């Protein structure tokens, strides 16, 4: 199993390193955004582990994005410092918001998180100084390192690949540690967890803060490539995409959300030619999955195996 994992991963990374060289310019862009979105869904997964689905994750990404963009632009501070700062700021905002938000659970938490997110997003629109209003802020400096030109997609893709890989690995470690087990416990039976000494409030906060921290980093990665940060990038529309990726991919395992993001983003890219049909097809896909594959794409291999076995048994 271990050797197989190592083999599979090295194959995957070899492919990812070679891949951008065979792609057209806009496809390289697409690959960068897809890689960033993987970090978005994996960090969202940590938040949902406690059983609370928030609608503020996209805005948290924006908090990181604005932090890094404004600091690097206005104070001329290097991207390599503002990148972690983006995460720290998103984590801090999450910590502050956890006090009012975690007084709510389930549906109320969902709505509460949406309201809090909109409040933050509208602040970016209302306060033209320093945020730049509806149009946002542009001319965000790109990273500098030796003589590498990070305005080019391929070097930036490698940068994103490294940062995202590290973050995803850290999130994987957290989920598979004692902390991950405790988060599951908080989700499945909060009162029982509480009865053996788990402070459920603290663990919900921990998941929310760490998840926001990593999505803040994803936000910084995104806007330093585009060069522009605007409120529109982090609206409820994008949040719905995150939800769809997780639901279609499946939320039982760590890799489900990744599969969802990859498959649907590729589908989306293929549909680029038939612009008018995209929302309809997206909606239909979601309904199809909820009805026929509620376990998400991750449950597909198992389903096929079962079907195969059933067929074989009926044949003999």
């Amino acid at each position: 199993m271990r050797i197989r994992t190592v083999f599979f991963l090295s194959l995957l990374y070899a492919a990812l390193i070679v891949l951008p060289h065979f792609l057209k310019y806009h496809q390289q862009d697409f690959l960068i955004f897809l890689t960033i979105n993987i970090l978005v869904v994996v960090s969202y997964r940590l938040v949902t582990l406690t059983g609370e689905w928030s609608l503020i994750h996209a805005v948290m990404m924006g908090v990181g994005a604005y932090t890094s963009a404004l600091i690097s632009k206005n104070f001329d501070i290097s991207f390599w410092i503002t990148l972690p700062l983006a995460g720290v700021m998103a984590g801090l905002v999450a910590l502050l918001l956890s006090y009012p938000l975690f007084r709510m659970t389930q549906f109320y938490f969902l709505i509460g998180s949406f309201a809090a997110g909109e409040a933050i997003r509208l602040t970016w629109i209302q306060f033209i100084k320093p945020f730049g209003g509806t149009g946002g802020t542009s001319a965000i400096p790109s990273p500098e390192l030796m003589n590498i030109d990070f305005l080019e997609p391929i070097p930036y893709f490698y940068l994103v690949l490294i940062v995202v890989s590290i973050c995803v690995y850290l999130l994987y470690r957290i989920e598979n540690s004692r902390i991950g087990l405790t988060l599951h416990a908080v989700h499945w039976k909060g009162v029982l967890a509480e009865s053996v000494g788990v402070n459920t409030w603290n663990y919900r906060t921990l998941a929310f803060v760490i998840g926001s921290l990593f999505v803040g980093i994803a936000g910084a990665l995104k806007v330093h490539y585009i060069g522009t940060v605007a409120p529109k990038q982090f609206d409820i529309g994008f949040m719905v995409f995150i939800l769809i990726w997780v639901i279609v991919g499946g939320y039982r395992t760590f890799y489900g959300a990744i599969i969802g993001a990859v498959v649907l983003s590729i589908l989306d890219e293929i549909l680029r030619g038939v612009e008018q049909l995209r929302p309809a097809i997206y909606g239909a896909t979601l309904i199809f999955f909820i009805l026929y594959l509620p376990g998400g794409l991750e449950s597909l291999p198992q389903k096929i195996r079962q079907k195969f076995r059933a067929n074989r048994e009926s044949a003999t």
Partner: protein
Amino acid sequence: MTPILEVKNLTMRFGGLLAVDNVSFSVNEGEIRGLIGPNGAGKSTTFKMIAGFLSPTSGEVLFRNNNITNQRSSRIASAGVVRTFQETTLFQELTVFENVLIGTHKQAHTNIIAAVLGLDRQKQNEAIEATTEVLEFMGLAERKNQLAAELPLGLQRALAVAISLAAKPNLLLMDEPFAGMNPEETRHMMELTERVRESGVSIVLVEHNMKAVMGLCDRLVVLNFGTVLDDGTPDQVRNNPNVIQAYLGGG
């Protein structure tokens, strides 16, 4: 010797209803203390107030002379007072082993840096050992890889106790562990409860099953309409005409 638990003048008022009225009793170290009474007598309310799942209107709960009234339930659990639940409150989706492993939270909880870097490995291994021990103690070792939801009722109750034991309690609060059990399961559960007491854990038992209560408890508190009707050994309580009347109904 100071009692391990002292309940002093505990009162709980829900609006106009006085659910628990000035209830006081104590639990000695190493004792199985029964809390009985007809339906609606205030047993569960008292129980929840001790475990920190309800805040009393007035009165206090002392654990080894420390006031634990109004503390968060997770803190009371960390202090050594652990409760079980009515029905089968388990992590149904997880395996028996994982269920008990979660119970070791007090000894195994860790911070995020240690978790990511694996610095807590020794602590986690100790938690796994403790889990294995508890599973063997409760006779669940062979079932450890089964999902909790797949266990028969009797074993689910045993698992619930195992989770609590993994938290290394000094005082175990058991909420109707015998409800709905057949005689065979009841006998098994009584043995387990006795074994838990012998391992040095004091127990408060809220229960309707009189056979279990009379067989296990050293002393009983009888509640009726939120007040203490009687407090004494099973034999004393059994022969108290007021208690008999409370159970059979006054005529």
